[in-house]
């Protein structure tokens, strides 16, 4: 079979990208960019003046080849056919990130602050390029249908997310990974095992079949659709049971992706708290990523926390598959292939279900600890420096007005060590130690001070923390890879699949999903601080 379709679609995509670059490069788009940034410097100027050129050229060249070249069956044809879909996703991501999301922000700011929340409607509803990208993907897949020439490339979006996770490995410090890993093992262990157990228990009370209970418990407990896909053949789920389970998870997951960031903003959760909550409470792993980026679209701290939880979940998946296989065989006596509980091949289950991309994540983390991506003095991809020799600029010292503002608000800060750090900042005009910087960061994340005071603290933090160039590049790439992946995943969520939600799975899923989200919220707020 020849996969590459002789169509001009990819060429047109390439020309559109080049048109964007040309518009920016020649200044034709300046009025539009000025309108979108409301008078401030347009924050994506670096990206928009380079990315459309690079990718546009690739798309035009490949597009000509697709349209006019001869194609023969084989590996080259298959991989080349994926470029069209990949470029379609990329173009949609570009349009949303650079034009549509900023336009929504402009409209939202024009509408004014919402009540006494101190936030604009786009902030409250998380209407940023990530959420809008997923929504655009869902609309395209369900209203217009993914065109045939783009189908292979749309599947490629999974690769974008996995590559994003692998690169993310370079951004954690050993201490962060240790603390986050420990926290996620406890939280995920408790909530995954708890939800799997509760679903199996409710299932037996409501007399649902063992196969239904098995597939539903994995989906509700571990990582949503991915767990359902992994477990369904093991517990011999019937097609209708698979459809009900996946429909329920998708519906619940998409709902959570919108609801979680709103609740997170209303409760003024910190990045760490929100990342931990989303990573535990949202059923489906794709929506965990979406919610984390929706909560913090212009940074990846929340994503870094949430992704550790996602990785923990997927590492637990082989164990859950094994558990359910043994549970199912014990209940049913045997599987269709004649496997008995003593005959389950533990090694084979672990190897076939092991997420290989996690090894890439670990490798990147290991490489980053050697100082390959940033000098050894860098901590967490950033290094602390408050002397001119270390890159501190004297004009960043706090002025009298700023210190006065902080002095007026210091009383609001609860923690003694945080107050001490702010006092030292007031006294010296700059942050003096890494510990003080961590305390200041925690105050910023908690959002307890006024916007003006928080802005002063953020500026003081930025003045002493310097990001290594390679790490900064990684952050950019990670943001793009996740945005790309999520638009593509949106294109794989069909309303007809979601419509299958119903029956017992919907009732049990609703109960367990709600308990999990509410309990994990309480645990996170009570036990998790603003930093790790």
């Amino acid at each position, binding site marked *: 079979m020849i996969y590459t379709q002789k169509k001009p679609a990819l060429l047109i995509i390439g020309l559109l990208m080049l048109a964007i670059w040309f518009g920016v490069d020649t200044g034709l788009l300046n009025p539009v960019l000025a309108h979108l940034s409301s008078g401030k410097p347009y924050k994506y100027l670096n990206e928009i003046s380079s990315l459309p050129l690079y990718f546009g050229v690739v798309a035009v060249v490949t597009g000509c080849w697709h349209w006019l070249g001869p194609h023969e069956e084989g590996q080259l044809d298959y991989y080349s056919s994926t470029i069209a879909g990949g470029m379609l996703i990329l173009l949609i991501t570009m349009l949303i990130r650079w034009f549509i999301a900023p336009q929504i922000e402009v409209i939202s700011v024009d509408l004014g602050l919402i009540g006494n929340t101190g936030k604009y409607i786009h902030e409250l509803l998380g209407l940023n390029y990530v959420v809008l990208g997923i929504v655009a993907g869902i609309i395209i897949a369900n209203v217009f249908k993914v065109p045939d020439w783009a189908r292979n490339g749309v599947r490629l979006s999974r690769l974008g997310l996995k590559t994003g996770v692998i690169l993310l490995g370079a951004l954690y410090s050993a201490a962060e990974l240790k603390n986050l890993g420990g926290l996620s093992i406890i939280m995920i262990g408790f909530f995954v095992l708890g939800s799997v157990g509760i679903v199996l228990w409710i299932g037996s009370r409501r007399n649902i079949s063992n196969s239904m209970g098995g597939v539903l418990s994995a989906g509700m407990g571990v990582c949503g*659709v*991915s767990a359902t896909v992994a477990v369904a053949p093991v517990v011999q789920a019937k*097609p209708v049971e698979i459809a009900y389970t996946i429909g329920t998870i998708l519906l619940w997951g998409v709902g959570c992706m919108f609801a979680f960031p709103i609740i997170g903003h209303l409760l003024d959760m910190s990045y760490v708290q929100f990342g931990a909550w989303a990573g535990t409470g949202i059923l489906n792993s794709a929506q965990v990523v979406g919610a984390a980026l929706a909560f913090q679209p212009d940074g990846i701290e929340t994503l870094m926390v949430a992704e550790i939880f996602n990785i923990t979940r997927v590492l637990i998946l082989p164990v859950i598959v094994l558990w359910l296989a043994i549970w199912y065989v014990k209940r049913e006596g045997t599987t269709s292939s004649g496997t008995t509980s003593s005959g389950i091949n533990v090694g084979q289950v672990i190897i076939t279900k092991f997420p290989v991309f996690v090894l890439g994540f670990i490798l990147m983390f290991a490489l980053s600890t050697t100082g390959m991506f940033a000098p050894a003095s860098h901590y967490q991809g950033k290094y602390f420096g408050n002397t001119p020799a270390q890159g501190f600029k004297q004009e960043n010292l706090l002025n009298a007005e700023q210190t006065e503002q902080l002095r007026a608000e210091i009383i609001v800060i609860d923690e003694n060590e945080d107050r001490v750090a702010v006092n030292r900042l007031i006294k010296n005009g700059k942050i003096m130690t890494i510990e003080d910087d961590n305390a200041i960061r925690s105050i910023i994340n908690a959002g307890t001070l006024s916007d003006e005071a928080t802005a002063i603290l953020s500026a003081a933090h930025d003045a002493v923390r310097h990001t290594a160039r390679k790490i900064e590049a990684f952050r950019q790439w990670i943001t793009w890879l996740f945005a790309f992946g999520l638009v593509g995943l949106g294109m794989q969520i069909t309303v007809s699949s979601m419509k299958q939600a119903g029956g017992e799975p919907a009732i049990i899923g609703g109960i367990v999903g709600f308990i999990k989200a509410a309990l994990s919220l309480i645990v996170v707020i009570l036990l998790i601080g603003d930093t790790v």
Partner: protein
Amino acid sequence: MLLFRHILLASHGTLGAIAAEDMALQICADNGMIDHLIVVPEFWQGMTGDDWLNNGVTRDQFQSYLQTELGREIDQQCQRLHRKISASACTYSSLIQFGRPDQALLQCTKKQRYDLVVLGSPRPRRMPDLMALRSTMLTKQLVTAMQTAILVAPYPK
């Protein structure tokens, strides 16, 4: 009673479809033909949803499992209805299609001339039926485009 010689019966074994099967048997002429249409809805194609954590082996395993199970269910339905129809004086043949159920039905009536099309009623709300998926055949588009008489069997009480 008016009897029909060539009937297209849509059934995938739900309660509503079984009522349609019974009605088709009642109104089929002796030695008449009943073509059994069974549609695999197109949403199965996207049933791996937004899974991205699994590796290719697991996804392939799932797809092949799902394909086998869907095939097995269809075989069971065809065999059951074959036995049921063969017990009367009618002849049975099966038509298996993939896609949107209403479109598949329309396509069949375009390829072959039928005296009557028999369908089951959509499942009433809050009526449990563990065989049923949300995939209605009786759409407005079908009713508008259909050139053959349609008989919709009432949902069993």
